[in-house]
């Protein structure tokens, strides 16, 4: 469908693709109406919505400038909180708990946000101020009040998006943020069992870490994972020190949702709402069809000498620093 759509007709539509054409940057939109984002990941919801005949037939495509028009018509949505993580640390549990309430919208690792974050790497000539406006517009469109019940918008990023922390801080300077982490050996075991895309050398996600070709070829999987996690960890630590990024250890969950995260984000829930949110913790956050079961011991048992060595060399010192800063943050609150 054409590019000159009346933006006011896009209420209930979410931007779901951001792509480049010779004519410029464009957005695809998908109709969700009042359908809530309850899947562990944003793109899961969209993939399902795409099977509805309405969304197969009507596929509005607009220029990127539509985001600014969208904000003009429907207002700017400021997130209540931003969620970063070291991967496999319980951040999906955090978003799933928020998503359990109708008055919360939790946008989890949306590829369309990832695309805006990376757009200046793909295409020259885009100014940072422009990118920041697109980010704000994207969050407003994704977090739009589609059922007149939404009050709080939470945005969870991909793990490696921590490299964009300074940019996101400029885009959302007054929005509180958290970084969730856990014992790196447990992350390592999880990644060795099933690697995220950014942990695979040579994939587009991994290229942001600027490893040389030689490093990508020669590093063992354990060393590669450790060095990627170390890069993310160093940036998160800097964020904690410079941008008031609140550090949260996996073992504090889910209790810390009430004691630390909600107060940090400035959101309040009543007893009934907390009960609803805690009920979400019964299930596996990434596969709600399954019940949750703690995996710490299993992950530690899976540790090999190579994993232990890589963690000792690259990650254990960072974990100690995380813990020191976290305890300092708790002490000052």
């Amino acid at each position, binding site marked *: 469908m054409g590019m000159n759509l009346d933006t006011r007709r896009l209420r209930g539509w979410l931007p779901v*693709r951001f792509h480049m054409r010779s004519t410029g940057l464009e957005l695809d939109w998908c109709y969700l109406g009042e359908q809530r984002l309850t899947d562990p990941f944003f793109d899961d919801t969209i993939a399902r919505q795409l099977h509805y005949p309405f969304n197969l037939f009507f596929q509005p495509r607009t220029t990127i400038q539509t985001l600014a028009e969208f904000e003009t018509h429907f207002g700017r949505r400021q997130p209540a909180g931003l969620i970063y993580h070291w991967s496999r640390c319980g951040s999906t549990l955090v978003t799933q708990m928020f998503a359990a309430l109708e008055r919360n919208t939790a946008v989890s690792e949306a590829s369309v946000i990832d695309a805006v974050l990376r757009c200046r790497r793909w295409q020259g000539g885009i100014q940072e101020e422009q990118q920041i406006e697109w980010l704000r517009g994207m969050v407003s469109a994704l977090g739009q009040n589609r059922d007149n019940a939404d009050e709080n918008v939470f945005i969870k990023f991909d793990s490696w998006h921590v490299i964009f922390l300074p940019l996101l801080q400029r885009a959302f300077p007054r929005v509180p943020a958290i970084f969730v982490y856990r014992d790196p050996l447990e992350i390592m075991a999880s990644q060795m069992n099933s690697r995220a895309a950014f942990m695979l050398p040579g994939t587009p996600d991994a290229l942001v870490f600027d490893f040389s070709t030689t490093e990508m070829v020669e590093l063992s999987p354990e060393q590669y994972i450790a060095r990627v996690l170390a890069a993310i960890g160093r940036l998160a630590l800097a964020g904690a020190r410079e941008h008031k990024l609140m550090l949260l250890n996996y073992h504090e969950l889910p209790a810390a949702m009430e004691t630390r995260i909600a107060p940090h984000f400035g959101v309040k829930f009543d007893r009934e709402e907390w009960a609803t949110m805690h009920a979400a913790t019964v299930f596996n956050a990434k596969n709600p069809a399954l019940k949750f079961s703690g995996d710490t011991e299993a992950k530690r048992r899976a540790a090999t000498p190579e994993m232990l060595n890589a963690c000792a060399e690259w990650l254990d010192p960072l974990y100690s620093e995380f813990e020191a800063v976290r305890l300092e943050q708790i002490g000052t609150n």
Partner: protein
Amino acid sequence: MSRENLEAFRDLVWEDEAALNRLRLATERSGFEALLIELGQAAGYEFDRSDISLIMRENHLAWLQRWA
């Protein structure tokens, strides 16, 4: 020709919120196609299920190819 009719009707119905709402409620494909044909005929646009299926298929493929 019927393909052109369908595309013209799609642009027209995009401006008709009442018709869009009816189409949104048609969650099954056959019901959606039947309703679209009915609405098109009422507005003077002739097309058939194969035209609708073709557009949906093209859109689906385009969508898959446009992953950022």
